């Protein structure tokens, strides 16, 4: 959808060039997707229920058609650029929420025409997608909700205003104060009004209740899957990450059902002891900058295919286990209370480093330490994509604390491109080697 404003950032591309870019993009993405899925299929005893997610993972499939049909009947699609957007309100208005963070490499090169390469590739990639109109899920958005979290996200949405109507949300950087809470609540209320206007449907208490029920069930499914990863290896980390991420644009109710089916299967597999890796495989926790399907599968592929192998059993990514982890906690059923609960759900438990506090994001540290304990983590990989300053800056504090607790932690800085694959491989292998010998020596004593 075009806006009337004069373009501030985005140049108009020549239609022929655009066409070419679109074709190349589609072919490239489908190739990467197929390659990644092929790799994931190599995992022994891979759950059958993953087939569904494999299908959704191909962006140009059934789901795209569904949304197009929905739009043809007058339905609205609301994109959001960061997990702080109140999904329940979008659902309550009968619109489809679609998360538009981009994990594509080639569009980031198109984005380079506007912003310098030092800027985070998620942002450059989103710019590329918008500029050449590449990505169906972005193209179908009637509007984009942009919670202004990190610097990149804050500015990219200003750039996107050239192509879409954007509703920005002002995220309070210090979130633990009554002022911040009420400030954020006001923003959520405003977004509610805007969604109502766009969809022509008023978001009643009843509609909100139903929407919250939907996400509570998604949380239940998401936590169920997490629980199953605490014990013996039943599912590869890549599969679990893919499941998490398909909630970006899949129908949430169906996603919940399919995730539950997957969990049923995993429970059976647990009884049969049908594992995806040896039981003593080093257990990896991923944290840091998001890893987004499909091009950021580089690192998880390397981890789980390396020799010695690693198994990703948990992550602390806004692109992963965190997406539907936190529930909307409604104490009383009044509309006002529900709205408050929705608002708080998005900032209060959020461990994103865009928030700052005197205690040094202690909540994130506690969360990670708890994950290490509950998932019996052997080592932590701290992933930073170049240009992601906030995650990079928080590393030192984490490193110090983790070293004190004698938890191996490894800083891995990378890009969207595959050029550094060789180097990444060597580094990951070295870390896993260290973990493997450590487990062995630990076993000896």
């Amino acid at each position, binding site marked *: 959808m075009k806006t009337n404003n004069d373009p501030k950032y985005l140049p108009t591309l020549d239609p022929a060039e655009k066409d070419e870019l679109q074709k190349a993009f589609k072919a490239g993405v489908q190739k990467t997707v197929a390659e990644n899925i092929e790799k994931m299929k190599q995992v022994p005893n891979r759950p059958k229920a993953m087939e569904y997610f494999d299908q959704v993972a191909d962006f140009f499939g059934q789901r795209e058609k569904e949304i197009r049909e929905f739009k043809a009947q007058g339905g609205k699609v609301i994109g959001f650029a960061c997990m702080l957007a109140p999904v329940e309100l979008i659902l309550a208005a009968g619109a489809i929420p679609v998360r538009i963070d981009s994990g594509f490499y080639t569009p980031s090169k198109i984005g380079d025409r506007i912003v310098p390469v030092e800027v985070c590739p998620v942002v450059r990639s989103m710019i590329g997608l918008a500029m050449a109109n590449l990505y169906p899920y972005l193209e179908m958005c009637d509007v984009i909700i942009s919670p202004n979290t990190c610097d990149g996200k804050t500015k990219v949405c200003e750039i996107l205003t050239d192509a879409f109507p954007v509703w920005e949300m002002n995220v309070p950087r210090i979130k633990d104060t009554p002022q911040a809470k009420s400030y954020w609540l006001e923003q959520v209320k405003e977004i509610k009004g805007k969604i109502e206007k766009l969809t022509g449907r008023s978001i009643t208490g009843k509609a909100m*209740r139903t929407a919250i029920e939907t996400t509570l069930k998604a949380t*239940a499914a998401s936590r169920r899957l997490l*629980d199953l990863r605490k014990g013996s290896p039943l599912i590869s980390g890549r599969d679990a990450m893919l499941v998490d991420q398909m909630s970006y644009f899949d129908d949430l109710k169906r996603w919940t059902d399919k995730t539950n089916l997957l969990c049923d299967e995993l429970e059976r597999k647990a009884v049969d002891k049908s594992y995806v890796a040896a039981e003593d495989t080093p257990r990896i926790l991923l944290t840091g900058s998001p890893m987004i399907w499909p091009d950021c599968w580089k690192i998880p592929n390397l981890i789980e295919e390396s020799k010695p192998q690693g198994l990703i059993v948990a992550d602390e990514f806004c692109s992963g286990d965190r997406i539907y982890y936190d529930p909307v906690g409604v104490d009383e059923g*009044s509309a006002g209370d529900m709205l408050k609960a929705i608002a708080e759900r998005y900032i209060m*438990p959020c461990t994103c480093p865009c928030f700052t506090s005197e205690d040094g994001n202690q909540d994130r540290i506690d969360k990670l330490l708890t994950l290490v304990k509950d998932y019996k983590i052997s080592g932590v990989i701290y992933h930073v994509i170049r240009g992601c300053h906030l995650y990079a800056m928080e590393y030192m504090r984490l490193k110090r604390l983790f070293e004190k607790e004698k938890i191996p932690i490894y800083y891995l800085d990378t890009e969207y491109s595959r050029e550094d694959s060789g180097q990444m491989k060597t580094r990951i292998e070295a870390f896993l080697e260290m973990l493997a010998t450590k487990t062995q020596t630990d076993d000896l004593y």
Partner: protein
Amino acid sequence: MLKITRLKLGVQIVFFLLIVYLGYAGVRLIEWKNISLVLPTLSCYYTNHRIAQCFIRSLQEGLSAGWKVGYSTLLVPVILLVIFGLIFGRAWCSWVCPLGFVQDLSIRIRKLLKIGYYNLSDNLKQVSVLVRWIFVIAILFIAMGIGIPHFFLKEYQYDLITPFCQICPSKQIFPFVEGRFKEMFTVDTISTLSAVMSYLAIGVFVFYLLTTSFIRRMWCRLCPMGAILGLFNRFSFLSLRKEGKRCTKCGVCQRSCPVQVTEVYEEKKKEKIASSDCTLCFRCVEMCPEKDALKVGLFKFPIARSKYKRFLQSSAVKVTKLQKENSR
């Protein structure tokens, strides 16, 4: 899994019936060798056939009777207070106190109507703590003052007898509950002071009525009994416990707390959450979505823990047909 709120409602109803209505079945105020059962709750004297006595009432009566005869009668109530307080802390307030129950009922009615509530600002919260201690000090001062011969308050002993009972909202509510409407709002104009006390009582009651639904447990925040019991929260065997590392600071507990305890959300280091405001209702425990972050403790042992399944069960948004039970 038994829902904490439901269990609590059951316990409250049972105690309400026991304290207020058991007397009608012929059971008299439980007395043994002239010692009566004194509970640290507002189990009001103005119910016809109560089986337990309100501690505040006993306190006032004992002090006013002077040290020769009165103070010795305080021994048993105080010993009972210490024992009950040490074991249960302020849990009396949310599980037993009849006036607490009446307040919960008015909150329940509001909730059914899906009407929102107001919170006290931090400043007003501090004021409420101040007011409850002013009540305690005033009770001690006046009741004791009446009991001291030649002290100036002695002169006003008939106007100021059981001063807190004169203004306590229970004095209007329990006659109402028992259908003795004539006994509500008795205005005594025998002296100016009596009249002042009568109108003060009406004022307090009007305040109670206006706030009871809309500010959750407003009276409890002013109640002198609650103030005294709150002192035991730090030592009580029954307690609210927290595993700070597991807390995501989602703030749900704080929002769910009827008396706006902030420690339950803020505290990350101490294991025991011992705010003197906390009535140990454990709503926070059932509403906390994080496994084991909050616990109901008996001594150090957890007897109930927070988990996602409990959260779903307790949330105001009901989740139907959950595919599989969730253990988190």
